[in-house]
């Protein structure tokens, strides 16, 4: 009975240990997944995810949400959508951070109902203040997009007053009010609030400029020139919205008949900004137009002529760039300047292209969201193609390695060496046993454990004894053997005395050496056993691997081909769109050129008419 209980105890203990061990390994896998996720290595995180998905319970729930967020991060919307729909149906207990990432991506995709659902799942206690502010901004914007303005307004009132996200929320709310044709004091107050409560940072300054610009444009459209002027004046002179503000400020002045005051912002615009900016080009024609309005016809004519020359040079430059656009490596230069080599949504990409003639002309196209997305997609495809090419090469190297492993394993070089080592070890063990036997016999033998000198002395004693025996046998009367016998016996006695005195020391030394040898033999035995095991395990390094590698190689090659093809298509699409943009730009320059040439012709014609009529070339009215 006791034996049975003992067995049961052993079984239950080992089962519990195995379960514990499994749990611990799972914990490590989960921790590894989080490490990759939190340090932004999403592809590695995806690899880990599969390993602990099957564990069930809360972990699998978390994995669902995280996987959906990561798929969205990598641009795989459809897969994420499927998981998200399942989460919505089944409910989930994922962390707030995971729901936030999901909300962020849905927001980017303008899926506003999904944004609201994801934010509803977040718990404020679990997340940082900056995450809360961004979530509140997304919630407000989602309400605005869904037409629920009151909820949006209520949401804004709960946000930190001077946060940047609050500023963005107010900005979107102002735009929604413009769209709804709202006006009046409340709108003015809202704009004042939105521009006043902003953080003192570059981002805050740019947002302030943006709100002032849209407010200025809105008031210009409504014919409220003074209000428009107030807001346009507030736009800073060194921000991304400066050109538009300067141009509109000038037109506002023209509308009010203040022609002189319109010229200054336009001249500023032409001096400080890219000549291919639509605002700058418009101002090039605006200046002589105003000069005409103030009846400075000679100056207007000269300005038109200068403008015509500038526009002709610009047209030639655009046409030259357009002709060589496909061969120009501007996209490759942009990709090579990126420090982050990961792909997907969360890759840290520098979206500003290196400044050169091509990018300067394409500037306005390169800030368009859809074009930037296409460029990012092209970059992803370049990275993926490079990755696949590298993996294909690696797999080919793996085949060589596995072949080598198989060849070496089949050549069976290890077994003869192991057997030889085993034979040597057996010999050593036999020698060890002999030594052990000698030690045991040493108590009975009088000349036991001799060293080299002693062995010589023993053989001398034996030889001497034989000589004495021979003399005795001869038995000559003239020879007395007795002194020799006595001398031999004396020497033997002294020798025996010396040996017996050294014996305990020798025995102790031999015992010590035998213990050390025994330990070494045992170690060698273990080592030989481990080598045998390793040799038995060796086939696992190649058995069945070649077939797996070949399958993977085929898959990799297929995806690589497809990736290279789509990469080329993507580049062609980008080039085509850029060419179209440059064609449009050429058309626009052509229009401006036509206008300037028409104006030049008209002014010359007016002057001629005037000369014919008056006989003088003086300017009219001056």
């Amino acid at each position, binding site marked *: 009975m006791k034996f049975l209980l003992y067995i049961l105890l052993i079984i239950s203990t080992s089962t519990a240990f195995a379960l514990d061990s499994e749990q611990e390994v799972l914990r490590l896998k989960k921790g590894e997944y989080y*490490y990759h996720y*939190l340090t932004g290595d999403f592809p590695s995180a995806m*690899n880990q995810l599969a390993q602990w998905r099957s564990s069930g319970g809360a972990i699998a729930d978390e994995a669902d949400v995280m996987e959906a967020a990561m798929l969205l991060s990598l641009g795989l919307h459809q*897969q994420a959508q499927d998981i998200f729909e399942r989460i919505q149906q089944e409910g989930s207990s994922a962390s707030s951070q995971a729901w936030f990432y999901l909300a962020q991506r849905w927001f980017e995709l303008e899926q506003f109902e999904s944004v609201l659902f994801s934010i509803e799942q977040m718990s404020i206690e679990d997340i940082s203040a900056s995450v809360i502010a961004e979530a509140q901004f997304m919630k407000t914007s989602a309400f605005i997009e869904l037409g629920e303005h009151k909820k949006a307004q209520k949401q804004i009132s709960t946000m930190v007053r001077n946060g940047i996200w609050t500023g963005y929320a107010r900005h979107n709310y102002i735009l929604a009010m413009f769209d709804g044709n709202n006006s009046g004091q409340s709108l003015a107050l809202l704009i004042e609030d939105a521009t006043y409560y902003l953080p003192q940072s570059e981002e805050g300054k740019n947002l302030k400029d943006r709100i002032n610009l849209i407010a200025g*444009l809105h008031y210009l459209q409504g014919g409220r020139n003074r209000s428009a002027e107030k807001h346009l004046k507030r736009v800073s002179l060194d921000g991304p919205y400066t050109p538009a503000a300067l141009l509109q400020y000038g037109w506002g002045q023209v509308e009010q008949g203040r022609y002189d005051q319109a010229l200054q912002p336009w001249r500023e615009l032409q001096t400080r900004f890219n000549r291919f900016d639509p605002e700058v080009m418009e101002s090039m024609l605006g200046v002589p137009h105003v000069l005409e309005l103030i009846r400075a016809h000679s100056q207007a004519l000269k300005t038109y002529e200068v403008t015509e020359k500038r526009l002709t040079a610009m047209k030639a430059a655009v046409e030259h760039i357009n002709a060589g656009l496909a061969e120009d490596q501007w996209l490759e230069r942009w990709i090579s300047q990126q420090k982050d080599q990961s792909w997907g949504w969360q890759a840290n990409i520098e979206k500003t292209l290196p400044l050169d003639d091509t990018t300067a002309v394409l500037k306005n196209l390169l800030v368009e969201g859809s074009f930037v997305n296409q460029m990012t997609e092209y970059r992803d495809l370049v990275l993926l193609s490079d990755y696949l090419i590298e993996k294909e090469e690696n797999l080919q190297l793996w085949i060589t390695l596995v072949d080598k492993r198989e060849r070496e394993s089949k050549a069976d070089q290890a077994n003869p060496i192991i057997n030889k080592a085993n034979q040597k070890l057996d010999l050593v063990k036999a020698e060890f046993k002999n030594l052990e036997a000698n030690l045991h016999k040493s108590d009975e033998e009088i000349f036991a454990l001799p060293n080299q000198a002693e062995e010589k002395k023993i053989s001398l004693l034996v030889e001497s004894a034989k000589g004495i025996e021979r003399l005795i046998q001869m038995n000559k009367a003239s020879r007395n053997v007795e002194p020799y016998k006595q001398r031999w016996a004396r020497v033997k006695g002294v020798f025996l005395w010396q040996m017996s005195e050294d014996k305990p020391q020798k025995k102790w030394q031999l015992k010590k050496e035998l213990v050390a040898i025994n330990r070494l033999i045992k170690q060698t035995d273990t080592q030989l056993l481990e080598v045998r095991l*390793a040799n038995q395990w060796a086939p696992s390094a190649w058995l069945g691997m070649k077939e797996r590698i070949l399958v993977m190689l085929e898959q990799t090659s297929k995806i690589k081909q497809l990736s290279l093809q789509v990469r080329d298509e993507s580049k062609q*699409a980008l080039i085509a769109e850029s060419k179209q943009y440059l064609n449009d730009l050429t058309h626009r320059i052509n229009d401006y050129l036509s206008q300037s040439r028409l104006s030049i012709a008209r002014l010359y014609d007016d002057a001629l008419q005037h000369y014919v009529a008056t006989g003088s070339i003086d300017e009219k009215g001056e």
Partner: protein
Amino acid sequence: MRLIYLMLLTIVSSWVIAQPIAENTQASKISQKAISIKQSVLELNRNLYQLEEDLLSPATTRAGVYFSLSYGEFFEPYSVNITIDDKQPIQYLYTKRQVDALRQGAVQPLKNLNLGPGIHTIKAIAKGVDNNGKNRELVLEQTVEKHDKPLYIELKIQDNKEIQSAELMISQW
């Protein structure tokens, strides 16, 4: 002129709101293909990862070294240096982001190794600063035994509230 204003307003408004709401939902044909490639690459990457693991470290010799931090109140690691049987040195320097990830419960996969059967000696030194900002080294030397199953070795910096200090510990499965 008003028409121009209206058009400009529309353009600027759409551009302006596009900053936080940037993406076009209508993916082009190329985008669809790119998405399909990304999906295939992810699946392929997963299979390649498994294959490379099996090739580099068959289960019989596979050993993984992991590093984790429990709370991290009394010690913040800057680097770890590990040797196994006085060979195969593993060295790692930590960034702030990685330390934050470890503090949140993440476990760092330091290295996958090939270990033969039998007993192996692990020496580990974790360098960093304690809660008073003073430089500290946590040192550990211990043996682990490898059988024919994969071996998981976890090096953990554990806070000890009683002595108000951290210690380096090792576990194996």
